[in-house]
């Protein structure tokens, strides 16, 4: 990635500072100091708006943005549980999630529900709740999911003696929709020949969303967008790349690829586009809870969903929209949903002449050693292909 005109972004620096203190970031500390509660959520199928509407701070449960020693977690979860789940647990066993007042998980994959089992068994926390999430998006599945979300609401109300009113939920929807529209604005800029931010920076920006109160985040993001517009910042790379696959929130990993000449202009990650992509449709569904539930089940699908072509179609559409020249698929070892999809997705991408680099990784890994070598060879191959074209 060659940086052609790079101004320092004050808002981005603030986000970096917040991220650096993960998991107990300064804004979370300030929130707790006001006597308010914090609930972790673990998967993009858990509707954050409900937690916010309960007057609590939803924070995303992740591991750290670098590879951890997982010895403690390995003692509770077998080594064939993916390292994303084990990293989350490792932090918990090291008391780093002690500030949580509850944890809402989802039965979205084997790792996710088994992590919740272990959390419930061994860690002291007022609430561990596992949300049932269908794997289809049929009307029947929506009806089930709406009921399950209603149960989640009730559980939160009972456990914390709060009321989640329709009004509060509507306000939460407005707040979170604003985030989505701001992130869309940011991602729109990434369609340019020379976007204003790198892929690594984009990841830092999205990471901050998980680690601070949403109203404060929106203000910061608004400032960032203004700075981007004012500064006419531009970054360029030799090759336009998409990164996709298992949970990834390590900017260093992307930076390694970008340092080799690639520019990650789009992602298909649950810590990227899949987090914010689809809006809540309050016009068709006036009941705010139903509107939220429908949005979460209909959102850009994770590989857990069936049929796989729904996800593939969206990945291909993104690749076209962002003029992607190559895809880097990172699959965490034992992340089975993505491992099953990968050969079929690769075939579809290659059919439209988009080469794919597949990387089996552990969660939090930086792009050193073999990964760097393979990424370098991939970028060089794409450059050569471009020259020949």
């Amino acid at each position: 990635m060659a940086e052609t005109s790079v101004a320092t972004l004050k808002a981005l620096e603030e986000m970096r500072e917040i991220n650096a203190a993960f998991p107990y970031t300064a804004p979370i500390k300030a929130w707790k100091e006001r006597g308010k509660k914090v609930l972790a959520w673990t998967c993009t199928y858990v509707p954050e708006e409900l937690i916010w509407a309960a007057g609590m701070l939803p924070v995303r449960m992740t591991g750290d943005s670098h590879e951890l020693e997982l010895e403690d977690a390995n003692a509770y979860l077998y080594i064939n549980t993916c390292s994303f789940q084990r990293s989350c647990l490792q932090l918990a066993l090291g008391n780093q999630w002690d500030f949580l007042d509850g944890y809402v998980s989802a039965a979205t994959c084997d790792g996710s529900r088994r992590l919740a089992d272990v959390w419930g068994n061994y860690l002291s926390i007022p609430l561990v709740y596992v949300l049932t999430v269908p794997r289809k998006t049929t009307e029947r599945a929506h009806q089930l999911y709406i009921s399950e979300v209603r149960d989640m609401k009730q559980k939160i109300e009972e456990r914390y003696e709060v009321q989640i009113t329709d009004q509060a939920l509507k306000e939460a929807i407005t707040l979170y929709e604003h985030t989505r529209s701001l992130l869309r604005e940011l991602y729109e800029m990434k369609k340019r020949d020379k976007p204003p931010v790198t892929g690594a920076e984009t990841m830092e920006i999205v990471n901050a969303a998980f680690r601070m109160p949403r109203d404060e985040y929106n203000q910061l993001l608004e400032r960032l967008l203004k700075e981007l517009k004012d500064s006419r910042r531009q970054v360029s790379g030799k090759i336009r790349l998409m990164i996709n696959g298992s949970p990834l929130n390590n900017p260093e990993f992307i930076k390694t690829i970008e340092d080799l000449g690639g520019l990650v202009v789009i992602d298909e990650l649950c810590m990227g586009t899949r987090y914010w992509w689809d809006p809540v449709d309050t016009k068709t569904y006036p009941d705010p809870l139903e509107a939220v539930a429908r949005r979460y089940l209909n959102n850009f699908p994770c590989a857990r969903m069936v049929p796989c072509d729904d996800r593939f179609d969206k990945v291909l559409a993104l690749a076209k929209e962002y003029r992607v020249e190559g895809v880097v698929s990172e699959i965490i070892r034992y992340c089975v949903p993505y491992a099953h999809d990968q050969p079929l997705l690769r075939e579809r991408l290659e059919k439209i002449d988009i080469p794919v680099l597949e990387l089996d990784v552990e969660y939090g890994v930086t792009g050193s050693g073999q990964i760097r070598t393979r990424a370098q060879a991939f970028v060089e191959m794409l450059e050569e292909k471009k020259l020949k074209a």
Partner: protein
Amino acid sequence: MSAVKALDLKKYQGMASAFQAIAQRRRDQGAEPSETLYYQTLADYHRQVLQAREEGRGLVGITVMVPPEICWAMDIVPLQLENALMSLTVLERCYEEVFSTAKGFGLSPEVCSAHRTIAAVFLLGWAPPVQGVIWSPQVCDNTAKCGDLYLKTYRIPGFFLDRPYRHTEREVHYLAREMGEMVAFLERATGKRLDLDRLREALDYSAQMVALQQEIYELRKAVPHPASNRTICQLLPVTLTMAGTPQAVEFCRVLRDQLRQRVREHRGTAREESYRLVSLFTPPNHKWKLLDWLEKEKGASLVADPYQSHWGPWEPDFSDPLLSLAQKCFAIPVCREMHGPAEEGVIADAVEDALSHRADGAIFWAHIGCRQACATIRAVKEALAQKAGIPTLVLDCDIMDPSFVSEEEMKERLESFLEVLEER
């Protein structure tokens, strides 16, 4: 898809013949009636699979725990993919070709070997020409994610039977309605129609089979243990493929009678029963001889196996057969252990079985491809130690890949564990 080879049923035919030959050999050797009947039942089943289309019957692939009763009731032979295609690989000894095909296609080695096996058999064109596939998340992410590949490989239609996480009335009803849609899919894919009376009949057979299995579970509390280690592993394949048929009932009846007789006569199967063990998860499919060795040479009986024999409460309602089958999916072993919160499933069942069957120890077959089962190891082990006072051996293995760990290594670890039990 470019990778698919032409249809070639020689391996499948070879497997069917192998089952027939084993049945004959058992008969000639004067083996226990259930032992002969098991292999004969499977030989007949695979013949039905091979002849289904010629005989005007339907033929559909189903993944583990999709209720076969519905298929049998519609005159559709359900090809139970995990069971049939793993047996094919074991009996035809084609591990290398199978795993290298899966790898060549791009399936990572972390995908469960059972599902890499099925994928490879489809890619190689060795799976019979099914008219459709029904797959389901009844057990794990692998069962949820495996289906798309089969559909694309054989260019056939499919139906995903969505099973929710928790055992609540709402979720059972959801699954029942999914099954209604599964029937509609089967009608479209095969041209067969569901006759509700035939479904009730299949449900009745299923209920008889479950009642017999519950009797078998009770009989296994006896000291000495009346069933051989191998026999107990034979229950699940019959349940998965033949539930809803008189053949499944017959197999369970013969086995129940055999155990009753042994209990009456205070006869065990181990020469001298020295150890009573709980078997957790599934012993390697390619190494059932290890179970014979445990029993015959070490006097170790597998007296309980929650993943294969611990049924939850289930009372069929013949006025609503689909709802009954949905309820069965929440009561059936494997699903009980693999789905839902561990505290309510595998942990509780393992402790109950260890106590009721007077176990001295437990073996957790830690299949490297099974994230669902292995993630509970610590909790199960601790619960067994604290509540049942028994130790657990965690034995690393692979359900399908014999190269993962050698037989000698497994035997060494088992022997060391038995020594620990001896000292206790």
